[in-house]
């Protein structure tokens, strides 16, 4: 994206020294045209770096800009390349300034990140910020694949359970009243992993048995396609409870600044 013949990256480095270099790279790639979006994205980036969460992430998708072309980029590596874990969209994903949502029929995305080759056993985390309160079976918000063992997050199934598994074949279920906010999980030990809905923690004893080796992580479906709106995605190394709380606060602040918090 250009501004008076120069890329935003250069303009910001020259005129706006408070802009973070990584944020500038993303703004340039995603062609963010709204000034407030650029400032908020910069604040998000700085918060993640200051708290050292940045170093734990493989993929941080801020889902900002309202277009497929802006929603596909990984903040950590905003190259327009699959090896940078940019998103690939299939079917119909509806992109708006509040996030992105599948159409419930044929829409989904893949991150181009393979759990088996990139992530470490007993050291992983996945989070997604959801803006739609909807119960539905079989539609994963984010998952590795249909082949266990692997990693899956279903925020709210038809029986109002937050179901998930993490590097295991055993699925856990915990009651929830809605599918709003930051859902995810983290594993830092072979014996157990932790699920999170915002700052509510569910400790689940389930020995890790392996990683999924079949496909990229993404919003996938076995038969039902997800149409809960997503507004932030994180895939990284394992995080502690304290780090998850930091991440939640940063993400919630980010969503609030964008006026799309739930």
């Amino acid at each position, binding site marked *: 994206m250009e501004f008076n013949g120069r890329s935003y990256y250069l303009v910001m480095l020259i005129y706006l020294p408070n802009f973070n270099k990584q944020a500038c790279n993303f703004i340039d790639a995603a062609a963010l045209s709204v000034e407030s979006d650029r400032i908020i994205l910069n604040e998000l980036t700085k918060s993640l770096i200051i708290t050292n969460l940045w170093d734990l992430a493989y993929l941080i998708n801020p889902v900002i800009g309202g277009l*497929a072309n802006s929603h596909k980029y990984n903040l950590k590596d905003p190259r327009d390349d699959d090896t940078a874990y940019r998103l690939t969209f299939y*079917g119909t994903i509806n992109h708006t300034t509040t996030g992105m949502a599948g159409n419930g029929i044929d829409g*989904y995305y893949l991150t181009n990140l393979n759990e088996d080759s990139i992530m470490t056993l007993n050291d992983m985390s996945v989070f997604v910020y959801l803006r739609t309160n909807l119960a539905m079976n079989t539609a994963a918000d984010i998952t590795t694949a*249909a082949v266990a063992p692997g990693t899956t997050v279903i925020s709210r199934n038809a029986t109002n359970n937050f179901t998930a598994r993490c590097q295991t074949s055993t699925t856990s279920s915990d009651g929830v009243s809605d599918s709003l906010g930051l859902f995810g999980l983290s594993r830092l030990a072979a014996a157990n992993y932790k699920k999170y809905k915002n700052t509510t923690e569910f400790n689940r004893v389930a020995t890790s048995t392996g990683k999924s080796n079949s496909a990229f992580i993404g919003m996938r479906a076995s*038969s039902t396609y997800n149409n809960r709106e997503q507004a932030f995605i994180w895939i990284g190394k394992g995080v502690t409870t304290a780090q998850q709380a930091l991440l939640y606060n940063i993400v919630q602040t980010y969503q609030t600044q964008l006026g799309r918090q739930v």
Partner: protein
Amino acid sequence: MKVKLLTPEQKQKLVGQQHSPNSYFNTDLVDADGNYIMAIETALNCTNNNFIWVKDLPEIEYKPIIISNDPEI
């Protein structure tokens, strides 16, 4: 709800193809009867001139595969 119906040959032509910038056809989608299908909005929003013909595909009633419990996703 209606969806577009594809023949196996038509489905094969769409594998790995974009229907609009940054968005690919989902060519894995089948209904409860084993038909290859596509969402109507995906077809109608297709901007790839090589595949504009998807707009003219016949429509059938959407019969999704129903799984009563969460599978091992």
